[in-house]
């Protein structure tokens, strides 16, 4: 029990020490680099948070995550169900999907801005585009792995098609969808910061570029720490939802 808390803390402490040592070493050649150090960053983080300067950016970013994720679910789940149910649909789309999946979503940025204009729309597009694949693939494998015993049970109850979908298929693939959502959140969170570096005027990605322009390096480190912590928390939430659904 103690080691479950102690070992991770020790790991984090070691990383902070390494971070401090790195900042000292870097400051030898570049005095300004001392702003990267943990204590300075922590002070900045405290200041940014208590002054309320960071919250609007956090809220904007989280909203983008939510919208991007929702779009990805709305598109990915039906496509995944189709992929899982129809061999022909799978055969027709597999190469296309593999191809699209392998293109970094950020590559679409210029095109997205051209078509959707500057603002939130291209960011939503990029996030949804990045997140749709794990949701689609996990939904499809959920459908393919539906327990044949459940379908037999539905038949033995003379279940209607609607009853079968609503009471067996959808709940039966929810665990897989949640796995997909968890992977999608991880991807969205990674794509979010670079996606917010172009054409928007709020959000954590924007704020990072802003600190760079203001040479506010301790704030830069503070935001990086915050991004990591928020991502960790989001992943934790998604994991908890998954575990809760399966009652593990």
């Amino acid at each position, binding site marked *: 029990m103690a080691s479950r808390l102690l070992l991770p803390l020790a790991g984090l402490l070691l990383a902070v020490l390494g971070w401090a040592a790195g900042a000292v070493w870097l400051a030898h050649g570049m005095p300004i680099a001392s702003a990267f150090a943990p204590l300075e960053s922590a002070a900045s983080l405290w200041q940014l948070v208590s002054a309320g300067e960071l919250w609007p950016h956090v809220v904007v970013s989280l909203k983008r995550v939510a919208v991007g994720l929702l779009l990805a679910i709305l598109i990915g789940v039906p496509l995944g169900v189709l992929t899982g149910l129809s061999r022909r649909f799978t055969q027709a789309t597999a190469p296309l999907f593999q191809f699209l999946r392998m293109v970094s979503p950020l590559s679409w940025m210029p095109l997205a801005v051209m078509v959707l204009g500057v603002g939130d729309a291209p960011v939503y597009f990029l996030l949804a585009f990045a997140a749709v694949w794990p949701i689609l693939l996990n939904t499809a494998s959920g459908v393919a792995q539906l*327990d044949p*015993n*459940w379908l*037999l*049970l539905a*038949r*033995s*109850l*003379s*279940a*209607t098609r609607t*009853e079968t979908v609503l009471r*067996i298929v959808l*709940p*039966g693939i*929810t*665990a897989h969808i949640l796995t997909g959502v968890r992977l999608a959140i991880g991807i969205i969170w990674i794509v979010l910061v670079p996606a917010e570096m172009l054409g928007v005027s709020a959000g954590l990605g924007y704020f990072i570029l802003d600190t760079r322009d203001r040479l506010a390096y301790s704030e830069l480190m503070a935001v990086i720490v915050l991004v990591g912590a928020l991502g960790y928390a989001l992943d934790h939430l998604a994991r908890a939802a998954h575990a809760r*659904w*399966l*009652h*593990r």
Partner: protein
Amino acid sequence: MSTAVSGDGGTGLALQASGLNFSYADGHAVFADVSLDVRHREIVCLLGGSGCGKSSLLRVLARLEAPASGDIRFLGEPLQAPHPRAALVFQQPGLLPWLDAAGNAGFGLDFEHQPRLTPVERAARIEQALSAVGLAGHAHRYPAQLSGGMAQRVALARALAREPQLLFADEPFSALDAITRAEMQALLVEVVHRWHTAALLVTHDIDEAILVADRILLMGEAPGRIVREWVVDLERPREQADPAAVTALRLDILSALHALRAH
């Protein structure tokens, strides 16, 4: 618990099948010209080696599959679709992991083609079924938290909650360890008697058939057909039946199986 026996045309039969033929899409006959009856409150075991078509026959009898030809009557009526008063238990419990034991036990109770129940009736059925299988205190446990034997008990409760006139069971205990299996065999006989239901139990285990059955049907293969029948009038519980009679029956079944192989 239901004691009422619905109309069966005065035959005293829960299930009546005659001249059944069946093949899967590949065309070769899985079983041919099978006729069998199950009386009310009777436990019939369908015994045969693996691959002889027992599961296929059970699925056809429950009307999960349509026979190529032949006639099935359930409570005297021609059977065209799975019947609300017939329930199934399979080798795998097939529980729904997002529902707790009570949710799983009641899962068959509120479908469009099942009899309407009030919430009170539904709750009472779930409670009776769970306590009949010894899980009264575990209604709120989820399948991930149940052992294999407990999961199969919930599957049995799910079948009982529908107050079946006939329980179809396809090797329901073959995935369990020997001790749990023995418990479940005894439990099955007990609840079938208490629920006043009939049961058709598929098994490849001679001892299981002798322990449980009122009547044993031996199935041969290629194509599947019923080759012999034994009425088992040994004392219950069978563990206390005359050992000589049990052994004699066992040897008789074994030699019939041997004769099948020799062909």
